[in-house]
């Protein structure tokens, strides 16, 4: 490539990287200054000396708007939600795809299509009726109510089904000849083969669970099951006396886990994302 063009490419890419990194940098810096500095609108571009106390306050006590519930407990709720949504989706999708692919039974296609069609019913579209079901079951403000309705997943089922189709028939025949039953085959052959797919799905679904907004907003009205994303937005609710330094520290804390998962598992994640959602 001609050197002049390579130079232009670098400039444009660096501009792109800055467009995503700058807001994060500002928040990172902001979270190390005291309330007065930020309130005056004098956010400097270099770190200040209040990092430790800001994060300690955010972690333990939160902001006034969150009524003393610390970000530490919100992060725990988010973590629980993200992990359980991811593991739950993977487990039940794996099981149902296995049943649909490796068995013949009446109603098999009906079962498959009824899972498939849920692709067309995102949670946002059926929020209130779903909320009503959850409240009739007495699950408002519980982890179960927060997590279980999000666990059914057509996408993960489709991905596993597609992958199971590629497992050669000879494997099944060999397993049968050796006297292995369906559960043994699932455990010893299919599960180990699916590891990469599961890792990729875990990243995607962890981020999905962590980033949920509308559903937790509806289902959690008490602070003890509140997730960190909801908690942070609540902190900004009252414009006049927003404690910006705490909000910024919370923002950094809320970003770290999903970003870490994506960056550390990048290879699997990219492969999984481009294969899952096609």
């Amino acid at each position, binding site marked *: 490539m001609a050197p002049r063009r390579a130079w232009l490419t670098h400039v444009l890419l660096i501009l*792109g990287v800055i467009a995503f990194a700058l807001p994060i940098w500002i928040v990172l810096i902001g979270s190390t200054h005291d309330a007065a500095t930020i309130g005056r609108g004098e956010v400097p571009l270099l770190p200040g000396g209040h990092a430790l106390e800001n994060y300690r306050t955010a972690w333990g006590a939160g902001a006034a708007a969150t009524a003393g519930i610390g970000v530490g407990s919100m992060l725990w709720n988010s973590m629980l939600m993200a992990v359980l949504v991811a593991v739950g989706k993977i487990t039940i999708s794996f099981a149902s795809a296995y*049943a649909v692919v490796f068995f013949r039974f009446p109603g098999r296609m009906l079962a498959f299509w009824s899972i498939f069609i849920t692709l067309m019913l995102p949670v946002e579209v059926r929020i209130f009726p*779903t909320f009503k079901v959850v409240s009739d079951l007495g699950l408002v403000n519980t982890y179960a109510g927060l997590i279980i309705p999000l666990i059914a997943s057509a996408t993960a089922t489709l991905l596993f089904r597609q992958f199971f189709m590629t497992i050669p028939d000879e494997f099944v025949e060999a397993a049968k000849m050796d006297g292995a039953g369906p559960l043994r085959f699932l455990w010893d052959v299919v599960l180990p083969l699916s590891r990469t797919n599961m890792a990729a799905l875990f990243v995607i679904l962890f981020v999905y669970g962590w980033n949920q907004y509308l559903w937790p907003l509806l289902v959690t009205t008490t602070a003890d099951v509140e997730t960190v994303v909801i908690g942070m937005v609540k902190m900004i609710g009252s414009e006049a006396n927003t404690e910006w330094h705490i909000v910024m520290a919370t923002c950094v804390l809320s970003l770290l886990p999903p970003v870490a998962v994506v960056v550390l598992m990048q290879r699997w994640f990219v492969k999984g994302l481009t294969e899952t959602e096609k």
Partner: protein
Amino acid sequence: MERKTVFRGMTLPALLLLPQLAITIVFFFWPAGQAVWFAFLRQDAFGIRTSFVGFENFADLLADPLYLETAWNTLVFSVSVSALSLSAGLLLAVLADKQIRGAGAYRTLLIWPYAIAPAVAAVLWIFLFHPQVGLIGRALNAAGLDWDYRLNGGQAMLMVILASAWKQVSYNFIFFLAGLQSIPKSVLEAAAIDGARPVRRFWTIVFPLLSPTTFFLLVVNLVYAFFDTFGIIDALTKGGPAKSTETLIYRAYIDGRVNLDLGSSSAQSVILMLVVIALTAIQFRFIERRVHY
């Protein structure tokens, strides 16, 4: 495609399917059915009596100029978000696909924003553009521009569009990059030998070969702009000022949660459901066709 060799039995597959089907029925089909049913009902002002009103909720909505304005806003918003984030994602993917030093590092630095929640993206943009606290917001005011997205509807719309597009760029980047990497290099080399310049090579070869990816992403981006941006709007503007950034999903939420008008909110849900079904159907038709290439 069917497997030839399968296991026998009824009980085990039924047990394996049970959790998925149970959740699907309880939390998907039952509420979706209820949404459709409620859409035909109306409660009196005290919530005591409920009567069947046929298509009246729908008729009221379609005759409501505010609803139509919200629908128009949603369209402008969704098309702008999709166009912006698709073109930025494509540009960055084309650049990062080149054989340059540090290509791997650029990729990681452009992929990580996938992890940012929509609501968090909104908060980041508040920090930048808040008229008193934000770095850019203050600079705009200092430059003599009357910048306050909390009072000016046009500026508010601009903010939610930019923040929503910003959050979606990395997703598009990942897919465009995967699409670009699957284009055989020999085709591009042949064109280069024939004397086609890079820009011409892009528009006559690369872009048409990317069209399945682009189309897929277009549908995904529209669905994203319709539904997933709820968090962005709620955190940034709460639909205001004066409903200027209210989208259809936001209004369905307000009517159900705040105004407690279950009939109207359900009718709105049904309309949104039809939109998703239409978009999904278009997408699957297209993908079916692509298989036959």
